[in-house]
């Protein structure tokens, strides 16, 4: 039997046969669904002067054109702090190019598309701000940094004075561009009203978040709103909050009194559902001649919208990653006329660690020190920002095992010293870190008379393997093979679970599922021990165990019976229990993070400036890995995400109109097959008894962190050119190469 921890995905068969159904693929009970297509602004700031829908309404099949003039009024005050309250067709303001201004609703997709084209918009234009500030002038301090949970700036020691006095200094600006998540599944919402009840199929990373938002907007009790999202075609943060198109679909369905399906086009996904904001980061490092850090200063500015607030927390890793007595971090915002940014895979760390770990590489060169040695010299044995011990930290082993697998010692330190024929070869490394998150969650487990079990939890599986981990937990605790466990998720009719974000799903839901399993198991063992007809009658439940679908005596495993036999005799259809779990005191006692080390080999074409990643080794310590197969996949995927960030991905905005000029998958370049070489991931063993009952820290985001810095550092090693402005495209390298 395959050990359960390397089991294939339980939803694999559905996904390879086309049987997995995503939000846009459901049909309402009566086949009367209407199609909605959004109409978006073509200016970046102003007001809608008038909307002419006469020609659009002539399109055969058009049912309605919804604009701010006829849209249902909604309550903007109760949808929750995390929910964008704009643009929802409640007024005539235009705040960015690509803003929703109308919705064409028709009996076919083709008719809705055509009608959307025929909506005529006339504007009164205002002056738009389209370029973010490059320095603190004109920026502002975030008002709700990290949801108001901490201040946007921190200082310990005397950072400025220590930096001024440092023997060796690095003082550089690093820039990261706007990036878009681009999940393969476009955001889709199918909304259906049944009286004052609302049923919504939605591509969602947070069904309960969507429920809260829609209940708030429409003034309904939360129980009147049901969100269903059994399969999600990737999210990476973009399906985390309740973006306006979800609400617009429900408003459209209300307006026309029929179910409405609204699917964003790929182009619309560049202005409708957030993005990783552009950042300008000023990093200053001071060190003594031996390489001991004496000062770390990290000042970040991130782009924000003209409405709402999202702040990219670029400096948080700089507070704790290295041992240093003098550290200062600030975060500021620069408002422009673009949509609201949002969380994107490893928000804060992906951008911030690129800057910090590039600067550390620059410091290693300035000191003439090996980059790993510099990091070991400044290794933090405790979190000096929070002044707490780490619940676990196995970063040293990540450096060692990663370096050994990568054969780091073959690296010749001098830049431009390694070649393969005419290609310049470079080796680079960087540290990865990501915090451990956890939220309250609930679950229900039901052991049925036919010897199968169902586990229910309103979490989401966005490709992360949640279905599989849920089934595994039940299999482990009830002694059932995976094909006898059914996992149900992605539905607000199930017990409540948090957003699939912050790498927290496993850490949050597993303890709840475990508790429900243990309760079912205890009831079952007690039933067997108390049943005179059971072969286990009279034994202490403590002496009993479960395995292979049976209840048995631990000391004499042949003595026992199947679940089916017990439940049939007892006349029970099922044994069911609830479980719930929430974080305890651990966060007060410990600093909890996962860590890793990234190693990259690049080849740079000296004539073309093209960078190809040839090899990548990532070593990660993230506590218990629940499933080695799906875990490895997630780590590889995180690294690939970082490769795109490093080399190709950037959303380009026309500085005159504010329009995204590369809003297609042919122009916004995510990695494709040919861009991705051999990737080796090492799961560094780590036991953490403090972090949560399962000791699992989460791995969804960690492998993205540090990848871009490792590549940038490898490019420097290959070429002698330090690129401090992502992505590292040929145009940034080519001039310096032709020497």
């Amino acid at each position, binding site marked *: 039997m395959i050990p359960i921890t390397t089991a294939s995905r339980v939803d*694999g068969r559905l996904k390879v046969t086309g049987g997995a159904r995503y939000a846009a693929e459901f049909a309402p009970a009566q086949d009367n669904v209407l199609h909605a297509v959004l109409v978006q602004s073509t200016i970046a700031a102003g007001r809608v002067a008038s909307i002419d829908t006469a020609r659009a309404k002539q399109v055969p099949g058009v049912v309605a054109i919804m604009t701010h003039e006829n849209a249902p009024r909604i309550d903007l005050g109760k949808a929750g702090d995390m929910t964008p309250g704009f643009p929802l067709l409640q007024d005539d303001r235009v705040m960015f190019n690509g803003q929703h201004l109308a919705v064409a609703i028709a009996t076919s997709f083709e008719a809705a598309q055509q009608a959307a084209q025929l909506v005529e918009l006339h504007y009164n234009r205002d002056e738009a701000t389209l370029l973010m500030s490059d320095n603190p002038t004109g920026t502002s301090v975030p008002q709700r940094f990290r949801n108001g949970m901490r201040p946007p700036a921190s200082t310990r020691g005397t950072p400025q004075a220590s930096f001024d006095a440092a023997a060796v200094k690095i003082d550089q600006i690093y820039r990261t561009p706007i990036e878009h998540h681009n999940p393969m599944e476009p955001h889709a919402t199918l909304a259906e009203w049944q009286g004052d009840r609302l049923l919504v199929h939605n591509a969602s990373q947070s069904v309960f978040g969507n429920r809260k938002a829609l209940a708030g907007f429409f003034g309904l009790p939360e129980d009147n709103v049901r969100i269903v999202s059994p399969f999600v075609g990737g999210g990476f943060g973009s399906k985390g909050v309740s973006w306006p198109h979800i609400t617009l679909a429900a408003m459209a369905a209300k307006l026309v009194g029929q179910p409405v399906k609204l699917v964003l086009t790929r182009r619309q996904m560049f202005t409708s559902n957030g993005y990783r904001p552009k950042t300008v980061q000023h990093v200053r490092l001071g060190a003594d001649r031996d390489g001991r850090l004496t000062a770390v200063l990290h000042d970040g500015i991130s782009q924000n919208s003209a409405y709402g607030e999202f702040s990219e927390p670029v400096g948080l890793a700089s507070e704790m990653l290295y041992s240093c007595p003098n550290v200062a971090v600030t975060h500021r915002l620069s408002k422009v006329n673009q949509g609201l940014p949002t969380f994107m895979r490893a928000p804060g760390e992906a951008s911030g660690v690129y800057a910090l770990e590039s600067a550390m590489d620059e410091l290693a060169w300035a000191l003439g020190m090996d980059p790993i040695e510099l990091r070991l010299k400044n290794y933090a044995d405790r979190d000096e920002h929070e002044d707490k011990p780490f619940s676990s930290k196995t970063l040293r082993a990540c450096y060692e095992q990663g370096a050994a697998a990568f054969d780091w010692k073959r690296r010749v330190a001098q830049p431009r010293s390694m070649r393969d024929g005419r290609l310049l070869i470079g080796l680079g490394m960087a540290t990865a870190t990501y915090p451990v998150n956890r939220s309250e969650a609930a679950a229900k487990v039901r052991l049925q008379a036919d010897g199968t079990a169902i586990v229910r939890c309103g979490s989401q599986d966005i490709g992360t393997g949640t279905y599989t981990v849920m089934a595994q937990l039940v299999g482990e605790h009830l002694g059932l093979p995976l094909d006898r466990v059914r996992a149900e998720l992605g539905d607000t009719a199930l017990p409540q679970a948090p957003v699939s974000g912050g790498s927290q799903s496993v850490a949050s839901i597993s303890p709840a599922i475990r508790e429900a399993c243990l309760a079912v198991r205890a009831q079952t063992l007690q039933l067997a021990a108390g049943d005179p007809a059971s072969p286990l009658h009279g034994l202490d439940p403590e002496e009993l165990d479960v395995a292979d679908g049976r209840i048995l005596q631990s000391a004499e495993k042949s003595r026992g019976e199947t679940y089916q036999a017990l439940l049939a005799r007892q006349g029970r259809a099922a044994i069911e229990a609830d479980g719930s779990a929430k974080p305890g005191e651990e966060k007060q006692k410990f600093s909890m993070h996962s860590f890793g080390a990234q190693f990259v080999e690049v080849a740079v074409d000296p004539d073309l400036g093209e960078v190809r990643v040839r090899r990548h080794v990532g070593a990660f310590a993230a506590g218990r890995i629940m499933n080695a197969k*799906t875990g490895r996949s997630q780590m590889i*995927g995180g690294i690939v995400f970082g490769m795109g960030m490093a080399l190709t991905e950037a959303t380009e905005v026309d500085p005159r109109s504010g329009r995204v000029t590369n809003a297609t998958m042919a122009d916004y370049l995510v990695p494709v097959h040919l861009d991705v070489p051999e990737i080796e991931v090492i799961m560094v063993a780590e036991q953490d008894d403090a972090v949560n009952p399962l000791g699992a820290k989460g791995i969804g985001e960690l492998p993205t962190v540090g990848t871009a810095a490792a590549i940038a550092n490898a490019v420097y090693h290959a070429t002698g050119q330090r690129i401090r402005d992502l992505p590292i495209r040929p145009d940034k390298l080519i001039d310096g190469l032709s020497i």
Partner: protein
Amino acid sequence: MTIRNFTRREFLRDTAATGGAAAIAGSGGKAWAVPAAADPPVPTQHRVTIRLNGTERALQLDPRTSLLDALREQLYLTGTKKGCDMGACGACTVLLDGKRVNACLVLAARLDGREVKTIEGLADGDQLHPLQAAFIEHDGFQCGYCTPGQIMSAAGLLNEGRPLDEHSIREWMSGNICRCGAYPNIVSAIRQASGRA
């Protein structure tokens, strides 16, 4: 019967012929994008019969309907995925007369008498196609949304008589984007299914 893919030029010409040029001009809704004084046209319905996964299917179609939308919205075969609707991501890859095409770039009304195979028609009853089994074994997906396109593209590739070393597979699968980054596992799965792993 001519077997060929549509070019972008043909697509534009055919769409324009039905009066729908504005419908593919991108979003925005500005008046300049619309032909002056043209009343919204009434599309005529086209009847075609295609052989879909081995079965004759008669369809009545708006001439602007892509094969992708015909599959998903009319036939409820939602295994073929819409990722970009402009031929850039490969999620909608199906086999048209045995060759892989992006279903979003093919007008369904022009497929009379043609043979289409989708992910739903790949397995032999309950017996998965070797590619499908290999994708599960090698975990060649995460969210699963690009997966039908990846598998159908690989099924097309296996029939193209190309070398199937790792580099060639990467090259010839590069039209199928996987944002979850399952590429190394997909390559392993295709290698195995091709008998070369």
